[in-house]
C-alpha cells in the first residue's frame, strides 16, 4: 500500500512499482507516476510548507505549476541541491530526498511563526515604514537581521557538478502545451507537412485529458484517445514531442525559450545525459495551448492545509488515485466544482456540503450533483475556518440581498475545495507583446491581437470545453457546458480576519485595500508595495483576484485597473541551463598565439588581455614577479629581449585610394609616406578622443600594413568598414584582417641587430640601409617575413612578422641566437615598464576616451594642412580648445622607493579639505630597474606648465609628495634607438 488515501484502482500511477522517498527526514512510499505532492497526499500529508512572511502552515493548493505553497528543496547530493521546486511538479523516484522550506526547526513547529501573531503589526509596506530611523541603524542592525530572515529556500553550496546543454531549433509550428487543444493543433500542423515541436511542462503529454473522467472522444475514453493521438504524432518524423519542457519565455520574432528537465526524475541518470537542456526555438508560427488555472476564492482563513482547488483535488483522484481527505466542504463559484464533488463522492469521499455564493446554478453538473443527493446551499459563503495544521471546520453563512452575511453554521471537514472559475494562462501571449481583452463573463483576460505570428487556442484563449479544444472534426460526447466564476473577495463580516489573495507572498485582501488608502493608484505600484504577484509565482493564482479587489475598492472596472506585466520566466529556470557549456574553461573563448605553447613550456605566468592569454613574465626558479620583471627590463636595456607581439591587430589596406583612406581616417599624413617607410598613427573618434594607435607601414603605393592595439583590432576594422561603406563609398580600397595570419616577434635591445643578422636573408639590416621606422620584406629563419624596424622600448628594435604556422619555429630560431647574447624572453609587464620609461602611451591606460592628442603631447603627429580627418572638427570645439585640460606628465615620488598606486588622485595640497577637485590621476606606475627608482605617468590639469612643482597623491596612509616632470624618464634624446 502506498498510502492510506490511495484508491485501489484508477489513475495513471503504477501501484506495482512502489518507490520510497524521504520528506523532512521521514520515509514515505509512493508509486511510479506520482508527483511529490500526490505521494504526500496519498499518505495523508497536506502540511507541506510555511508561508514566506507570516510563516503560516500551508498545504498543497494545486496540482500543477501554479502551486504557491508547497515549495520544496530537493537534495541530490553535494552541489545538487535545488530549492523552491513545486512539489506538484517534482516526480518521485526511489531515494528522492525532499525537504520543506522556510521553517526552523521543523515544519510542524516553526519558531518564526511568531510573525503570524504579530501580523496585525506587519501590514503591507511594513519594512519601508519601520526601518527608517535612526538612519545609522540600517546598515548595522536592520539590514543584517532582515537579510537573515529573508529569501525563499537556500542556495546550493559548491559548484554544480551536472552538465547542461543547449539546443537551437527551427520549426514551422511550435505548440506550447500538449493538452487537447495543443494536440489538435500539432496534428493539424503535422498533416500539412510542418516541422512541429510540441512541448509540455508535465511528465507526460495530455494536459486535462490525463484526468478526464466523463467525456468520450470519437467513441473512446479520453485516455485511450490520447494514447492513439500521441502514437500517431510520435510516428511522424517531423514532429518532436518534448515532455518535462516548460516554455518559459517568449521573445521577439517568435523566439521561444524552453527548459527541458532531462534527468531529475531518474533515480540513476545516465552520466552522459545533461541534467537540463535549454531549447531556443525560432518558429514560423507559435500556437499557445497553455490552458487555464483554477482561481482560488478569497475568504477569511482560506489558507489552511487541507484547503485546495476543487479541480486539483479531482485531478489527484483521477490521475494519481489519491483521495485528498475523508470529508470535504466544497465552495463552488463555478460549475466545475460540482464535477469535482461528483467524482470525489463516487470514490467514497463524503461531501459535507456544497456552498455556492451564486443565487442559482442550473448547469448540467450542478443538476447532476443535486440529483445524486449531494447537499447544496446557494447564496452562501465561507466566512472562516479552524485548524492549525489542517482545516477541521468551516463556518458557513448566508449572503443577504444587501451583500451582508448572516448566520453562521459550523461544518466539520478535513478538506475544503474551492473554485472561482478559470483564469486563462496568457503569460506567453503577453510576453509576445500581445494585447489582452477582458471578458466579463469569464471574469478574466483573454488574448487579443499580437504583433507576432502567434495564436492561442483552447482554454488559454477562453474557449473552454473539449469540443472547442479538439475542433468540429472530432466527436465529443458528455462534455457539458460549465459556467460561473468569481473574482475578488467574497463577502464576510469579520473586519479583522485575513483572507489571502497571494499565498506565496502572504498578501491579503486588506493589504491591497490598505495600499489604495495610502494613495497607490497604479496597479504596478500596488503590486510592488504589497508584493502581490511577484517572485517565482508571477501571480498565477492571485492576479485576477487582486485586480478585482483593487477595482472594487477604487470604484473602477477591472480593465480600467489594468494588468501587471507577466515576466519571464513562467516558472523558475536553473542558472545551469542558461550557462550551458559556457562555464569554467569554456566561459569565454580563449585566444592563444602561435608562441603560446613555448611560453607555457618556459613556465611563463599569463595574464588575460581581453580573450587573449599573454605571457606576463617569465620567472626563473626562486624569482617572484618583481624580481623577474627587474631582470627582464635590465637585460633588454643592456643586451636584448624578445617578446611575443602576435596579439597586435593587423589590417591590410589595399587599393588605389588606400593612402587617401588613411589620410581621412587617421590624424597623420600618409600620402607622402614612401613605400618601405612606417609612421606612428593615431586614430580618433569623431568626438576628437584618441581611441587607437599603432605603426602603419607602406609596403607599396597601394598597400599598407596597419597595426592596431591588441584590444582594438575588431573595433578598428568595424570602424574602417563603417566609413568605407557609409561615408566614402567612392574610395577604391579593400580591407582584410590579417591579425591571425602573422605571428609577430619583437626583438629589442642593443644586440637586436646581431641576433637577427644570422637568420635574415634578403634584407640589409645595417643602420644606413634599414633606418628606424622602415619596413622590408625578406626571409627570417627561412620563412617569408615582413620586418619592421620599430621600437616600443626606446632601444634598437625590430618586429618580425612571419606566417603564424611558422611563428613558433622562427621564435625558437631567434631564441637560439638571443641566448648567445644573454638576451631574455620578456612578458607584457616588462613591455609596460620599458615603454613607460620612455613616456610611450598605451591607449586605454593613458587614455580613457576623454583624451585628445595634445593632452598626450602628441599634437605633433597631426598632419599639417590636413583639411579634415575623423575627429578633426572636435579638436576646435570650445571645451577641447580651452586651457586647463589634463596633460600627460611624469611623476617622481619624493621617496624613490614608493611606487604610487595606479588610479591615485593628484591634488595641489597635502591635506585638501573634503570636496577639493583632483587635478588629475596616476595612469601608470612602476618600479624602473633602469632608473633604480619608481616612476609614474599621470594626467594632470595644465600638467606641462607644472614641471618642477610638487603635488600630492592622498593615500590612506598619508599624502605622498610627488615632483612633476616630463613624461620621458630614460634617454630623452633617443640615442638608443639606433643601437
Amino acid at each position, binding site marked *: 500500500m502506498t498510502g492510506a488515501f490511495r484508491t485501489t484502482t484508477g489513475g495513471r500511477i503504477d501501484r506495482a512499482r512502489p518507490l520510497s522517498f524521504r520528506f523532512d527526514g521521514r520515509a514515505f512510499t509512493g508509486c511510479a507516476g506520482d508527483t511529490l505532492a500526490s505521494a504526500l497526499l496519498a499518505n495523508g500529508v497536506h502540511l507541506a510548507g510555511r508561508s514566506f512572511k507570516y510563516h503560516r502552515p500551508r498545504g498543497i493548493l494545486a496540482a500543477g505549476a501554479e502551486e504557491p505553497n508547497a515549495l520544496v528543496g530537493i537534495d541530490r547530493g553535494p552541489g545538487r541541491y535545488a530549492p523552491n521546486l513545486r512539489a506538484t511538479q517534482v516526480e518521485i523516484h526511489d531515494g528522492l530526498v525532499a525537504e520543506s522550506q522556510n521553517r526552523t526547526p521543523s515544519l510542524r513547529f516553526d519558531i518564526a511563526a511568531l510573525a503570524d501573531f504579530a501580523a496585525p503589526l506587519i501590514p503591507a509596506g511594513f519594512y519601508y515604514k519601520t526601518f527608517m530611523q535612526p538612519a545609522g541603524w540600517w546598515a548595522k542592525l536592520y539590514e543584517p537581521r532582515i537579510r537573515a530572515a529573508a529569501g525563499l529556500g537556500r542556495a546550493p553550496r559548491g559548484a554544480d557538478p551536472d552538465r547542461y546543454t543547449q539546443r537551437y531549433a527551427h520549426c514551422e509550428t511550435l505548440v506550447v502545451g500538449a493538452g487537447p487543444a495543443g494536440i489538435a493543433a500539432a496534428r493539424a500542423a503535422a498533416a500539412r507537412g510542418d516541422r512541429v515541436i510540441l512541448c509540455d511542462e508535465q511528465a507526460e503529454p495530455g494536459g486535462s485529458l490525463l484526468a478526464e473522467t466523463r467525456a468520450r472522444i470519437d467513441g473512446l475514453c479520453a485516455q485511450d484517445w490520447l494514447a492513439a493521438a500521441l502514437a500517431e504524432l510520435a510516428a511522424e518524423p517531423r514532429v518532436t514531442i518534448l515532455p518535462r519542457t516548460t516554455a518559459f519565455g517568449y521573445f*521577439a520574432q517568435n523566439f521561444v525559450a524552453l527548459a527541458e528537465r532531462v534527468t531529475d526524475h531518474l533515480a540513476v541518470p545516465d552520466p552522459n545525459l545533461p541534467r537540463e537542456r535549454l531549447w531556443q526555438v525560432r518558429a514560423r508560427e507559435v500556437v499557445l495551448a497553455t490552458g487555464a488555472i483554477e482561481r482560488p476564492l478569497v475568504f477569511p482563513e482560506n489558507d489552511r492545509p487541507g484547503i485546495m482547488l476543487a479541480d486539483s483535488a479531482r485531478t489527484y483522484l483521477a490521475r494519481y488515485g489519491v483521495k485528498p481527505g475523508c470529508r470535504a466542504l466544497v465552495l463552488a463559484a463555478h460549475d466545475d466544482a460540482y464535477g469535482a464533488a461528483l467524482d470525489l463522492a463516487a470514490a467514497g469521499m463524503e461531501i459535507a456540503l456544497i456552498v455556492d455564493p451564486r443565487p442559482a446554478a442550473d448547469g448540467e453538473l450542478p443538476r447532476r450533483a443535486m440529483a445524486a443527493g449531494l447537499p447544496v446551499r446557494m447564496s452562501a459563503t465561507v466566512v472562516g475556518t479552524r485548524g492549525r495544521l489542517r482545516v477541521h471546520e468551516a463556518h458557513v453563512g448566508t449572503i443577504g440581498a444587501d451583500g451582508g452575511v448572516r448566520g453562521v453554521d459550523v461544518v466539520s471537514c478535513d478538506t475544503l475545495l474551492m473554485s472561482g472559475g478559470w483564469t486563462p494562462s496568457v503569460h506567453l501571449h503577453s510576453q509576445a507583446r500581445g494585447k489582452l481583452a477582458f471578458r466579463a463573463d469569464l471574469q478574466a483576460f483573454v488574448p487579443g491581437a499580437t504583433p507576432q505570428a502567434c495564436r492561442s487556442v483552447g482554454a488559454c484563449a477562453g474557449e473552454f470545453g473539449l469540443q472547442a479544444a479538439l475542433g468540429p472534426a472530432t466527436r465529443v460526447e458528455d462534455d457539458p457546458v460549465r459556467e460561473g466564476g468569481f473574482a475578488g473577495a467574497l463577502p464576510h463580516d469579520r473586519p479583522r480576519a485575513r483572507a489571502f489573495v497571494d499565498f506565496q507572498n502572504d498578501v491579503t485582501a486588506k493589504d491591497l485595500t490598505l495600499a489604495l488608502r495610502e494613495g497607490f493608484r497604479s496597479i504596478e505600484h500596488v503590486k510592488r508595495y504589497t508584493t502581490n504577484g511577484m517572485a517565482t509565482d508571477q501571480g498565477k493564482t492571485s492576479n485576477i483576484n487582486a485586480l478585482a479587489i483593487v477595482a472594487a475598492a477604487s470604484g473602477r472596472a477591472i480593465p480600467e485597473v489594468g494588468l501587471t506585466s507577466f515576466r519571464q520566466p513562467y516558472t523558475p529556470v536553473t542558472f545551469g541551463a542558461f550557462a550551458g557549456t559556457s562555464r569554467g574553461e569554456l566561459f569565454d573563448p580563449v585566444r592563444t598565439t602561435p608562441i603560446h605553447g613555448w611560453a607555457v613550456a618556459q613556465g611563463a605566468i599569463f595574464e588575460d588581455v581581453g580573450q587573449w592569454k599573454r605571457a606576463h613574465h617569465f620567472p626563473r626558479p626562486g624569482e617572484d614577479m618583481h624580481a623577474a620583471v627587474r631582470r627582464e627590463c635590465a637585460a633588454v636595456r643592456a643586451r636584448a629581449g624578445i617578446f611575443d607581439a602576435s596579439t597586435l591587430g593587423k589590417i591590410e589596406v589595399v587599393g588605389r585610394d588606400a593612402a587617401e583612406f588613411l589620410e581621412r581616417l587617421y590624424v597623420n599624413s600618409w600620402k607622402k609616406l614612401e613605400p618601405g617607410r612606417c609612421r606612428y598613427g593615431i586614430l580618433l573618434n569623431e568626438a576628437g578622443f584618441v581611441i587607437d594607435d599603432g605603426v602603419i607601414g607602406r609596403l607599396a603605393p597601394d598597400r599598407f600594413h596597419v597595426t592596431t592595439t591588441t584590444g582594438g583590432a575588431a573595433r578598428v576594422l*568595424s570602424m574602417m568598414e563603417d566609413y568605407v*561603406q557609409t*561615408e566614402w563609398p567612392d574610395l577604391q580600397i579593400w580591407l582584410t584582417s590579417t591579425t591571425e595570419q602573422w605571428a609577430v616577434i619583437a626583438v629589442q635591445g642593443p644586440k637586436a641587430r646581431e641576433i637577427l643578422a644570422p637568420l635574415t636573408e634578403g634584407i640589409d639590416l645595417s643602420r644606413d640601409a634599414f633606418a628606424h621606422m622602415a619596413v622590408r620584406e625578406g626571409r627570417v629563419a627561412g620563412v617569408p617575413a615582413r620586418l619592421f624596424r620599430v621600437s616600443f622600448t626606446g632601444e634598437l628594435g625590430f618586429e618580425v612578422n612571419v606566417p603564424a604556422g611558422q611563428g613558433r619555429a622562427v621564435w625558437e630560431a631567434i631564441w637560439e641566437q638571443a641566448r648567445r647574447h644573454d638576451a631574455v624572453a620578456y612578458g607584457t609587464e616588462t613591455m609596460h615598464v620599458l615603454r613607460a620609461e620612455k613616456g610611450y602611451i598605451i591607449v586605454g591606460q593613458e587614455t580613457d576616451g576623454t583624451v585628445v592628442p595634445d593632452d598626450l603631447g602628441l599634437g605633433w603627429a597631426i598632419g599639417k594642412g590636413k583639411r*579634415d580627418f575623423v575627429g578633426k*572638427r572636435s579638436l576646435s570645439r570650445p571645451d577641447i580648445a580651452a586651457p586647463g585640460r589634463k596633460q600627460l606628465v611624469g611623476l617622481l615620488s619624493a621617496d624613490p622607493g614608493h611606487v604610487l598606486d595606479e588610479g591615485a588622485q593628484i591634488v595641489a595640497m597635502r591635506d585638501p579639505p573634503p570636496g577639493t577637485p583632483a587635478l588629475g590621476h596616476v595612469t601608470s606606475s612602476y618600479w624602473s630597474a633602469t632608473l633604480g627608482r619608481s616612476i609614474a605617468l599621470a594626467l594632470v590639469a595644465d600638467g606641462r606648465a607644472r614641471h618642477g612643482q610638487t603635488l600630492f597623491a592622498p593615500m590612506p596612509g598619508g599624502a605622498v609628495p610627488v615632483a612633476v616632470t616630463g613624461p620621458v624618464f630614460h634617454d630623452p634624446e633617443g640615442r638608443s634607438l639606433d643601437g
Partner: protein
Amino acid sequence: MLLIACPHCGPRDEAEFVCGGQTHIARPGPPETTSDAQWARYLFERDNPKGLHLERWLHRHGCGQWFNVARDTLTHEVKAVYGLLDTRPDVT
C-alpha cells in the same frame, strides 16, 4: 532575440549583429564651415522614439557589411531592411 534579415545572408539571429544606432545622419563638413552647434548636434543628438526607428546594423559575425533596419522599438517588429545608401523606406 531579434531576427534580422541581412540583405546579403538572409534572416539571422541578433547575436551575429552589432547595432550602430540611428541612421541617415549626414556627417557635416568641411570642418571650417561647420558651426560648433551643427557639429555638437551631429555628435550627440539622437532620436529615442517609441515606435518606428531607422537604425544601422553591422553583420559582424557574418558578412561584415553595414545596412539599415526600420524597427518598431515597442514591438521589435522589423519593418524593413535596406541598403546603407538607399532612401528611407515607405513604412510607418
